[in-house]
C-alpha cells in the first residue's frame, strides 16, 4: 500500500507550512503529498508565494505531488482559486474537492478528494468516465462500503485511498466559527484560526471534548487511527492510506504507517508507537466498524491481532 500525505487543513504560518513540507520532502516515507488550500481561500495568499519551491522540493525528493482544491466554492475569489489549480490538470494530478473543480477537468485524469460524495458504485462509475484515476473515500464509510467500492473501483481501473490518520473533516460552512467564537466577522476575521495549529477544541457543556473548529470547517476532536485496520484495508485492495497532517511529528507518523503497510511491524506495535506520540486528543476508528465516528473500538482489533 502507498502512503499519501493529505493537504494541511489548518492555518499554519507560511514559514511553518514551508518547513513542514521541506522536512516531509527530506525525511518522510510517503509516496504522494497533497498541496494546496482546501478550507479557506482567504489563507491562500500567505503560502502561495512559497508553494512552488515546496512543490519542487517534494518532486525532487521523488514524491508525487497532488494539487488540492477548495471544498466549498461560492464567491469569485474561491472560483478563481479553483480554476487556477484546475488548469494544471493534465500536467499534474489535481484533487477535486467540489463539483466546481470537476467542471474544469475536461477529461483529464484527476483525483477525487474526501469532500466529494462517493458512496456507491454508480457514482464511482460516473466519475471514472469523467477521468477519475484515484479517489479518497469519505471518512464516514464503514468496512463493507469501503470493500464494495474498492472492488468496483478495481474493475473500473480506479485506485481507492482511505483516510487513516488525523482529525476527521466533518463539515464545512459558509460561516467561520473561529471568527464567531472570537466575536469577529468572517470578513474581518484577523486570521484568528492561525492560533490553533490543530484546530480549536470544542467541549460539551458537561466539559467533554467533542469537536474541533478550523475556520469554516468542523473536525472531530478525536484523531482517526486505522493502524489496526490497515491490514484489512490492504486485503480489500485499497491502494493508499491517507495521513492528514496534525501539528505533531508527522515524519514519525508516516514512518509508522509505512512500516505497517510494508509488514515490517505488527498492528499492535504500530498502535503502541502512535500512542507514544502522546497527542493531545484520543484516537477513534468507529466509522470503519459501522459505529459512531467518535468511538474507539479497541477490543476487536486486539482479538484480530491475537488470532493472527
Amino acid at each position: 500500500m502507498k502512503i499519501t500525505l493529505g493537504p494541511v487543513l489548518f492555518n499554519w504560518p507560511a514559514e511553518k507550512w514551508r518547513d513542514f513540507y521541506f522536512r516531509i520532502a527530506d525525511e518522510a516515507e510517503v509516496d504522494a503529498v497533497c498541496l494546496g488550500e482546501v478550507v479557506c481561500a482567504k489563507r491562500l495568499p500567505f503560502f502561495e508565494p512559497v508553494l512552488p519551491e515546496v512543490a519542487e522540493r517534494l518532486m525532487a525528493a521523488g514524491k508525487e505531488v497532488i494539487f488540492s482544491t477548495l471544498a466549498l466554492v461560492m464567491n469569485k475569489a474561491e472560483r478563481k482559486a479553483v480554476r487556477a489549480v484546475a488548469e494544471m490538470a493534465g500536467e499534474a494530478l489535481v484533487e477535486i474537492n467540489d463539483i466546481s473543480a470537476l467542471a474544469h477537468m475536461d477529461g483529464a485524469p484527476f483525483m477525487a478528494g474526501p469532500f466529494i460524495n462517493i458512496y456507491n458504485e454508480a457514482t464511482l462509475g460516473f466519475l471514472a468516465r469523467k477521468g477519475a484515476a484515484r479517489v479518497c473515500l469519505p471518512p464516514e464509510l464503514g468496512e463493507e462500503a469501503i470493500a464494495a467500492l474498492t472492488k468496483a473501483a478495481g474493475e473500473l481501473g480506479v485506485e481507492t485511498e482511505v483516510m487513516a490518520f488525523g482529525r476527521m473533516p466533518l463539515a464545512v460552512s459558509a460561516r467561520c466559527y473561529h471568527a464567531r467564537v472570537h466575536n469577529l466577522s468572517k470578513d474581518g476575521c484577523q486570521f484568528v484560526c492561525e492560533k490553533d495549529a490543530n484546530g480549536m477544541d470544542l467541549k460539551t457543556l458537561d466539559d467533554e471534548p467533542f469537536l474541533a473548529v478550523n475556520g469554516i470547517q468542523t473536525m472531530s476532536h478525536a484523531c482517526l487511527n486505522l493502524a489496526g485496520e490497515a491490514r484489512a484495508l490492504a486485503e480489500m485492495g485499497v491502494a493508499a492510506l491517507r495521513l492528514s497532517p496534525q501539528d505533531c511529528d508527522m515524519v514519525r507518523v508516516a514512518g509508522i504507517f509505512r512500516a505497517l503497510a510494508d509488514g515490517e511491524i505488527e498492528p499492535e506495535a504500530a498502535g503502541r508507537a502512535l500512542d507514544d506520540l502522546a497527542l493531545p486528543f484520543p484516537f477513534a476508528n468507529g466509522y470503519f466498524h459501522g459505529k459512531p465516528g467518535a468511538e474507539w473500538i479497541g477490543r476487536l482489533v486486539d482479538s484480530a491481532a491475537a488470532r493472527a
Partner: protein
Amino acid sequence: MSLELVCPAGTPSSLREAVDAGAHAVYCGFRDETNARNFPGLNFSRKELEEAIAYAHERGAKVLVAINTFAQAGRMALWEQAVDDAASMGADALILADLGVADYAARKHPGQRLHLSVQASASSPEAIGFYVREFGVKRVVLPRVLTLPEIAALNAEIDCETEVFVFGGLCVMAEGRCLLSSYATGKSPNMNGVCSPPSHVAYSEREGGEMVSRLGEFTINTFAAGEKAGYPTLCKGRFEAGGRKLYVFEDPTSLNAVDMLGEFAKAGVTALKIEGRQRSKAYVRKVVSDFRRAVDALESGEAAHTSLASLSEGTQETEGVYRKTWR
C-alpha cells in the same frame, strides 16, 4: 412571473393540507433511506404516493419526489427502484443529490424532469452548470450558504431555475457535506437520511428543572427551567470553545425570509421552499397559507406580513442567512 411555492409533506394528510392551503408544489419522499427526512412514522408508501399525486394533480398542484440521499454501496437497487417508481407514478420532478442516482435517472428516464437537491451542495455556476450539462437538471435548490447578492449573481450565470429556502429549520453547514451526526451516532443525513437521529436523542431533567438534551454520548444543550428549547440538532447546540460557552455554530433559530420575497423575485429566483417534512400538519397548514398569501400579495403589489415565530425552533426567527452579516 409568479413565484412557485414548494411545500413540505411528511405524511399523506400533510400533503392534502398543503395542497388545500395553496401550495403550488409539494415535495415528499418514500418511507425509506432514499430520502433525507427518513424519520419514524413519516413518509409515503408506494400506494400513498400514487394517491397523493392524484390528489394534487386534480387540484392543479405538482408533486416533487425527493430521492436525495446518497445511495449506499451494494444497495443501489433501492434508489433505482425509487427513481423508477416515482417516474412511473407521474411525479412532476425528482429531487436528486447523488451523482450516481442522477446519472441513472437521466439515462433511464430521459423525459423525466430532474431537480438538484440542496444536499448536492452546488453553490457555484461551475458546479450547477455541470449538473445541467451532464443530467439535464432543470432546477437547483440552492444551498443555504449563499447571500442574496450571490444568488442574484448566480442566476445571471446559469441555465436553470433556482429554488431557495424561505422558512423553517436552517442548516448552517453545507448540506450533504456534514458528518456531524454520524460522528456522534453512526447515522448520517447522507447515508441514512437522518440528521441528529431521534433514535439517539435523549432528554432528561436535572435538579432545579434544568433539561439536558443529548445526542449519542454527547450533551448538546442544557435549558434552564422555562427556557425555550430546541431539538438537539448538533449544529444548534451550546458548547464551550475559546473559553466561552455559546451557540458556536448557530443559535436555535429558524429561517423566515417572508419579507424578502420581492428581493428573491428580483434576483431571478423561480421557487420558494418551505422546510419541514418532519413537522405536523398544523405547521404545514399555517406556514403554507401564510406564505401563499404573501406570494399573492407580492404579485398584486400589496404588503403582507406573517407571524410564524411560535412555530420556529427556540421560537426565534432570522432571515440573516441571506445577509452577509450572518457570516
